[in-house]
């Protein structure tokens, strides 16, 4: 157990599964689905082992794996785990098996490719969270793109091609600039030390201290990438399209994990590597975050489509993440991390629920819904739960995160918290508006026309949602489970920007 390369296993186990599935004849749907689920579950179990072996009090990366890769340029295969990555990895493994399970019903065409795509996607996502070599990180980062491109493009809705190409191109814009930034940092390190050794090593670079001008430009590259991924106003417009067109499970992963990649990148890489630039850019980013929070929420108010509504709500929620990061306070960052996890669970749940109704009606137009409480009471209850969770009801995970961000923001400058706090009202407004239209009222004619097709949630669907409910409650009542994990990374982060000094605090 001690000597097993657990991190590599958790990264590449899905790949093994994907390869195995590649050799299953495509007609054997049950076998393919089973194999995919078993792989995802196995990965999940391995990630739980990570949890067991992890010590939140060790102020360093754990379970490290280091191997020379391309010594000529100091590129290494280097993995490591801290509390932040651990939480996100477990979130990833959890959501992946949920997403795969949720796909059993809806996906009937090209199941084999679908499952392979999902497992490859998982490889990329986990890899991003565990890589400690900039190069390795970049590679995993880009790997994520490809399966998602296929998932949206092949199994998506009617306008899927536009959406998927937009998604890929938009993401590429940023990530390629990030590549330039990474290489720029690496080269500057090499030029200063005269050796390539360690030029891509995250820990080495973090301790290096780059020239402020270089930081300023390199930060743009990193920031754009992550801002697009999160997504941050005004780089968010790919998100509604991608979400609307993606299949349910795709949306779950997209909202649940992919957006988190951006937040993770900012916390892990953008700020610690370029702290001076981060300080310099912070005011602008804070303003953008605030715009995103309010703007996303307001636009969500008038969305006619369930998925678009949730998508814009993501823009708003993720604004809290960027806000929490760039106010550089302990509470802000803890809040940002908690929001990331909570948003993964809650928005994942919301997308699953939208998927449930879409399965039955093949429609997501809010105006056509109504009175589901009567016909699908369990559904109504679960939707109510996630709506409440999303509007940050106390006792559920999101509340803790948003409150912490707001506390941090207030500490930074009260008006910032005031503006961000508007989301409290606005999120309630759009979510309840949606809830009221969909769940309350008389059963709509459209739904009545569906007759018995409109059955309540089945066992599979309940099974996919149950863990999310449990975790949302657990992290709401005992946020310490999460927050204690984040202690070390948060300290590192704050130390990198000069703990306690609040950048540009008015």
């Amino acid at each position, binding site marked *: 157990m001690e000597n097993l390369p657990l991190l590599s296993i958790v990264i590449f186990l899905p790949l093994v599964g994907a390869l195995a599935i590649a050799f299953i004849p495509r007609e054997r749907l049950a076998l393919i689905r089973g194999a995919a689920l078993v792989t995802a579950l196995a990965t999940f179990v391995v990630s739980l082992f990570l949890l067991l072996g992890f010590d939140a009090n060790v102020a360093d990366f754990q379970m490290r794996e280091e191997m020379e890769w391309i010594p000529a340029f100091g590129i290494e295969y280097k993995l490591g785990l801290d509390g932040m990555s651990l939480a996100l990895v477990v979130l990833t493994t959890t959501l992946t098996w949920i997403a795969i399970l949720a796909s059993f019903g809806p996906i009937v065409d090209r199941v084999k490719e679908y499952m392979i795509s999902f497992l490859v996607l998982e490889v990329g996502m986990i890899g991003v969270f565990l890589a400690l070599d900039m190069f390795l990180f970049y590679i995993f980062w880009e790997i994520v793109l490809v399966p998602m491109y296929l998932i949206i493009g092949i199994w998506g809705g009617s306008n899927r091609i536009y959406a998927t190409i937009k998604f890929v191109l938009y993401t590429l814009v940023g990530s390629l600039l990030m590549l330039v930034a990474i290489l720029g940092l690496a080269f500057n390190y090499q030029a200063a030390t005269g050796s390539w050794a360690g030029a891509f090593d995250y820990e080495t670079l973090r301790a290096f201290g780059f020239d402020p001008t270089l930081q300023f430009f390199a930060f743009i590259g990193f920031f754009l990438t992550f801002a697009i991924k999160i997504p941050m106003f005004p780089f968010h417009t790919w998100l509604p399209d991608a979400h609307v067109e993606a299949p349910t499970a795709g949306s779950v992963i997209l909202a649940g994990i992919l957006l988190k990649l951006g937040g993770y990148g900012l916390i892990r890489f953008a700020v610690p590597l370029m702290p001076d630039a981060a300080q310099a850019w912070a005011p602008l980013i804070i303003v953008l975050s605030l715009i995103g929070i309010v703007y996303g929420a307001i636009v969500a108010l008038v969305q006619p489509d369930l998925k678009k509504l949730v998508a814009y709500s993501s823009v708003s929620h993720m604004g809290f993440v960027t806000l929490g990061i760039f106010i550089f306070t302990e*509470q802000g960052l*803890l809040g940002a991390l908690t929001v990331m996890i909570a948003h993964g669970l809650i928005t994942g749940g919301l997308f699953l629920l939208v998927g449930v109704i879409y399965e039955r009606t093949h429609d997501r137009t809010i105006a056509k819904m109504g*009175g589901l409480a009567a016909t699908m009471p369990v559904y109504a209850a679960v939707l109510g739960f996630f709506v409440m969770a999303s509007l940050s009801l106390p006792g559920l995970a999101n509340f803790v995160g948003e409150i*912490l961000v707001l506390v941090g923001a207030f500490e930074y400058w009260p008006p910032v918290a005031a503006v961000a706090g508007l989301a*409290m009202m606005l999120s309630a407004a759009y979510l309840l508006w949606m809830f009221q239209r969909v769940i*309350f009222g008389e059963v709509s004619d459209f739904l009545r026309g569906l007759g018995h097709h409109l059955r309540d949630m089945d066992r599979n669907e309940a099974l996919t949602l149950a863990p999310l409910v449990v975790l949302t409650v657990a992290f709401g009542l005992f946020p310490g489970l999460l927050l204690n994990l984040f202690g070390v990374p*948060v300290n590192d982060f704050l130390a990198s920007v000069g703990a306690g000094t609040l950048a540009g605090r008015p």
Partner: protein
Amino acid sequence: MQLTVDQLLVVAMLALPLLGFVVTGLIGRRLYARAWIIAVPIIIVTWLIGMFIVYQALFAGAYGAEGLRFTLYEWIPAGDFSISFNFLVDNLTAVLLIVVTTVGMLVHVYSIGYMAHEPGRWRFFAYLNLFMFSMLLLVLAGNFLLLFAAWELVGLSSFLLIGYWYNRRTAALAAKKAFLVNRVGDFGFALGIFAVWTTVGTLNFVEMPGFGPGAFELLPGQLQAGAIDPWMMNGIALLLFMGAMGKSAQFPLHVWLPDAMEGPTPVSALIHAATMVNAGVYFVARSSNLFAHAPEAMVIVAAIGIFTAILAASIAFTQRDIKRVLAYSTLSQLGYMFAALGVGAFTAAIFHLLTHGFFKGLLFLGSGSVIHAVQGEQDMNRMGGLARRIPITHATMLIGSIAIAGIPPLAGFWSKDEILAEAFLLHFEWVWAIGVVVAVMTGFYMFRLMGKTFYGPSRVDPAVEPHVHESPWSMAGPLVILAVPSVLLGLAIGFPPLDGALHHWLEPVFHDALETLDIHHHEFQLFGLDGLLMLVGATAGALGVAGAVWLFGLLRVRSPQEQRVERLTERARPLYRASYNRWWFDELNDLIFVRIGSLFARALWWIDVRIVDGTVNGIAAVTQRTGTGIRQIQTGRVQNYALGIAAGLLVIAISYLFLAR
């Protein structure tokens, strides 16, 4: 963690309703008619525990002056921002527990009968249990954030219960409105909490075992030390008060409460009269130490309170829906309480909270019984002459009405009088003056309600008329039980005036705040200013009652004078319309938030699609078009190509020759 028996009981008091909610929620559907079988007994047990705690606190004095303080576990361990599940059970809490557990228990019992014909009643009981949990958490909470959490949770249960009849559009809208308006208040509340934390670094109300001093102990010190200026203190107070305004439906956040009457009547009684809406009052009282250091904020509290009182009373004048009248009456009475808080009469506010909780609960349950009797009709124009048909309901409601009208010696008299008197004595003469007017109005609209409902000829739908009957004992019983405190509570704990049991209980709680405000206890002087004020108060109430009786009748003593009403209405047409249309607040809200808001949102969406996304798509289109343009150079003809190459050669040659070095 070792908990003492009392602590354990406090926890149990929270855990039991929560358990009830979860169990009823999960298996309730399979309980069919006996959906209450878990929920109601649990609440009865909770009530018993509550009573024990109250006994321990108020009568046995087991918790001392500072109350029972303990911590369950650390809830949010975010560095310096460490929030625990901690509880504070002092006398104020205990007083609140009396009304919360008692009315709560009675409403639960009442609901067994009231909801007997509802197919989905298991949901109702589940929600009620959830509410009880949230409300108890609210009064027991030992820090701001936990209180805030409970604050939101009662909002949630209120949302669920108002929207209980989900297929009614009005109910659904009312539920949403209630939640949203509350969120507006909570927005300020939350900011206030952050401000508290930022200034003193703790959110505990008071010093908790194992933790440092609490906010109420630190804030005055900070102020005196000059770490925060008075301006900021006022700001914090007002932000926190914003939360109270939302929850207690004070102007301009009062709009949700009347709509909330869409919920089942027991809900109106419990949540929207007796308990939840009092949370704001409770919270301000709890924060008396903070408010005392923010005198300007207190004036605003008083002003908003008394303004809400008269505004709501004016609307209650003309409403036809029996529950709406009661709802506006609730608003009005809450306004009294805030006025009291604002002037510094904390005890009076809590006193009124207590008495109001009982008699308003009684009135609501009574109205429920009326509605039950007339098969769901709520329009008073379609009632009348019900006094003989439903005697128990009538009798108890009459008691409630007298109580609220402020006729001695019933409960309402003592508490209301104390508020008015204190306002006058603390030199808030304007508050007193308006308060007296409101007292007149209160008597009037309550007896208008009585008259229209119970007296005179029957206007009940002929189809329903034969089926009018008294409610079952599960409903009538609670009415009778509630009538007792409505009559006696004032005498029991508020007599002698300013020196009753309640005053002794609460003295330690408000001691510091009163010190700060330089308010000192004085003996009640019957034959002095105090007596005079009391007389004015009682007279005012009686005047109102008399006016209403003159117009709308009373028992068989006097029959309603419909023409006179007509005439009066005609004479004050504009006022009548303003009152009847609730001063058009709903329309105003609709205009600002729904119409203009949605227009704004649509405009933003347009910007998002056309401009933000349009830029993205535009860049793509321009790129593509550039490509298509450049493509034209590839003509397919060799000579063109050759010419291009030669031209390129020329450019290169010229550059080399003339530009190099």
